[in-house]
């Protein structure tokens, strides 16, 4: 995050949310997020978006008896 700190924060946002930044990078973006409303608003939004996507896909109901059916079919073939 050199010339434009907000640009730098934007480019680090995805890896930051994925928890793959180094310790030094993590603390740099966290210091910036604490001081910058523009970036922290977007951070909150990005984080929320991820959990919305995850929840909606993980709410997918598994068909009744799915695992048992699978077990039976696969042992028939064994």
């Amino acid at each position, binding site marked *: 995050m050199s010339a434009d700190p907000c640009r730098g924060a934007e480019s680090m946002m995805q890896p930051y949310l994925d928890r793959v930044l180094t310790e030094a990078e993590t603390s740099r973006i966290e210091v910036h997020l604490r001081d910058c409303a523009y970036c922290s608003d977007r951070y*909150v*939004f990005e984080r929320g*978006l991820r959990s*919305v996507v995850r929840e909606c*896909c993980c709410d997918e109901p*598994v*068909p009744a008896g799915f*695992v048992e059916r699978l077990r039976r079919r696969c042992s028939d073939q064994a």
Partner: protein
Amino acid sequence: MLLLADTLVEMASSEPPPGVVAASEARDRARFEDDALGHAEHLYRIAVRLTGGRQSAEDLVQETYLRAFRAWRSYRPGTNLAAWLATIMRNANLDELRRQSRRPVQEPLDETGDYYLYNRLAETSPQPQDEVLARLSGTAIVSALGDLPPNFREVVVLVDVGDFSYADAAGILGIPIGTVMSRLYRGRRLLKRALADRAEGEVVSA
């Protein structure tokens, strides 16, 4: 006691009798099957997003387990079983796509920034971070994911839905970690663009 000692000597000095091998192999296999089936629901949810349909997801997971049970000896205990199964599932899915001869879609051009969705939604809503997220329906998200080109969709689904690490996803897909990252970031940007279009559609139709 003498009998036990004899047995121990026999076990140490020679191959165990065939019945013992068969029994312990059957136990290993049964245990493998139980462990593997413990991941079935997780794989199903990934499969629904990969294939875009419930029936095709069920077929894909079934094919995955048939292959996995045939190849169970090649799984090394103690390694990541979910990733091992996901690798099989991904290959089974590729085979199916090839069978239907659907060619992978060309990489789309996208020059939108990371905050594209936020910025678009902020035009119509003063508080995008709260209200607009609630406005994104499950249907919109599912259909937006389904519209991603397959090679972007599979990375996004593995990492953001399946919770696999970059390294696991690289192993499952057989691509370098750097490629995982670039497809993941671009895939997410494409998803946001697709969501922005859908969110606006919903506002207009509301």
